[in-house]
């Protein structure tokens, strides 16, 4: 019988945020094929991750707990996963949509001589394999791709598969897996890893996001966005130009190559609405665009729009938030 392997990436021992969406993808594959699901938890001090993975409903749960994997090390993780694949011979592998996950998938796909599909939005089994859809051209188009050689490597798009519910009782015991990882044969070496505190991590959880773009004109105006975000118990994000020019840290970037978010409210200030940016925020419930160009594409994707200079609009907005005037107007 076939198996689906879900790769459980960990951060500080905990499964990464997308894990339950991967499980959901894995379960859907199992439904379509009649296969069973395995999980491999990889990282350092993986105790919490293992315990959570036991609730995934997987038949087998393997663990690679190795201090060398504390920091992301794509080459080493590829070796570990290649070993696991040798052992389990999965028919499909569901990878996390993280920087590490994407890179390991690409390496593994070439090694195994198979295709991989990144940012999968839907999957359908047919006689020749699995037909998946994924965004291309920065989200301007969708491609459908048939994966036929096995294992199929699938990286689900964030938000495309609703997070699975953990099962009530552990479905299997976590078993250590001895990978033959030998640092001496690896060609790359990780050095220092500088973790920042304002990493935008809370972005993925925030209910309100206030995002600034090139139209903010510099680093200083982002203070205003922070002031508004604080008021609304939200977080600050950015389009790519503010990250590239160093106005904010790159970790705040939303979009195709940044984070994918879906808050209740996404306020885009001085952002034109390029498809690559909208890839990261188009699932937000309410999108507000503040832009002084009435023809900016963002207005086609926004629920509410204000055509104007952000300096004025945000001043009025913050004022209303601060003095309660908004209440009176309603």
């Amino acid at each position, binding site marked *: 019988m076939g198996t689906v392997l879900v790769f459980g990436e960990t951060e500080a021992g905990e499964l990464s945020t997308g894990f339950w969406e991967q499980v959901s993808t894995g379960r859907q594959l199992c439904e379509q094929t009649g296969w069973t699901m395995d999980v491999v938890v990889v990282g350092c001090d993986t105790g919490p991750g293992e315990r959570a993975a036991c609730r995934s409903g997987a038949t087998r749960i393997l663990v690679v707990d190795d201090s060398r994997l504390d920091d992301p090390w794509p080459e080493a993780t590829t070796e570990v996963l290649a070993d696991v694949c040798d052992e389990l011979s999965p028919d499909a592998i569901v990878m996390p949509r993280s920087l590490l996950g994407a890179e390991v998938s*690409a390496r593994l796909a070439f090694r195994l001589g198979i295709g991989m599909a990144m940012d999968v939005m839907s999957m359908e089994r047919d006689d020749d394999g699995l037909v998946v859809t994924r965004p291309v051209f920065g989200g301007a188009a969708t491609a459908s791709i048939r994966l036929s050689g096995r294992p199929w490597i699938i990286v689900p798009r964030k938000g495309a598969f609703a997070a699975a519910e953990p099962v009530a009782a552990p479905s299997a015991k976590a078993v250590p897996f001895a990978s033959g990882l030998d640092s001496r044969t690896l060609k790359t070496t990780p050095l220092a890893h500088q973790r920042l505190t304002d990493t935008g991590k809370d972005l993925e959880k925030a209910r309100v996001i206030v995002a600034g773009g090139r139209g903010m004109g510099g680093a200083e105006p982002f203070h205003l966005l922070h002031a508004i975000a604080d008021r609304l118990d939200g977080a600050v994000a950015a389009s790519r130009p503010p990250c590239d020019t160093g106005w904010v840290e790159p970790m705040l970037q939303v979009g195709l190559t940044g984070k994918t978010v879906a808050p209740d409210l996404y306020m885009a200030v001085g952002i034109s609405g390029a*498809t690559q940016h909208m890839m990261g925020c188009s699932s937000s419930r309410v999108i507000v665009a503040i832009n002084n160009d009435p023809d900016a594409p963002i207005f086609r994707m926004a629920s509410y729009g204000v055509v104007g200079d952000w300096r004025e609009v945000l*001043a009025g907005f913050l004022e209303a938030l601060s003095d309660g005037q908004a209440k009176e107007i309603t």
Partner: protein
Amino acid sequence: MRIVVLIKQVPDPLLPVSELTVSPDGGKILGPENVPPVVNGYDEQAMEAALRIKEFRDGECEIIALSAGDNFVLDVLQRSLVEADDLVLIEDESLDTSDPHHLARVLGAAIQHLGDVELVLGGRQASDWDHGQVPLALAEHLDWPCLTLARAVRVDDTRVEVERVLSDGYQMMKCGLPAVVTVTSELGELRYPTMQMRLQARRRRPVQVSLEDLQVGTDIDPEWRTLGVSMLEKTRDCRFIGPDDGTEAGRQLAAVLLEEGAIVSIQPGGGV
């Protein structure tokens, strides 16, 4: 030191969706005929990284731009000769530029054909298919180390060190040469070419290399296949908040969002 910079010709990624069309065979996205394609943005940053290395080595460095594809627009690709010492083109109608593995084998053969290449710089992803796979596959193919997502690249004669941008900070990584490195947009500003660079570029011509020269087949992976592409334009009905006075519009926006339930609390201090 010989550095190869991988450059891919792509439709302009900033074209609005409404101006893109699907090719007659349903397999490609095309830009309008009157709008020229561009060199993939991250590849221009890879070129900038190469120039910084060249500068650091006081010019002791040869930069070769390398591209594989079909329907090349020479004008566009030749612009890389302003920065690069040479431009090598592999143009073949049979080349499937949506197949990262095939591209990796073709580019790998070209790199071996060139010889003595110590560093390959590429972009983190190409804006047509958004794969982010070719440099990684290339490194696997050549059995070279690969470091990704670099916002800074430093080399000496035997190794390369990069500063990677991760989702929670930065990470330094190193490996020996030869190596493949991918570059991300956080690398920063591109330089403005000097007059001297432009003048020198005029004297250079691209070198054409054929798939036969490289002895790579045109066989395409049967293991996966693009079945087709379709345009996807999501739109919402935007409700404009009217007043010309920006401050007033801002106030009304707050009111509307409160009514909508998008803002839960407007009390100073925030929170629910």
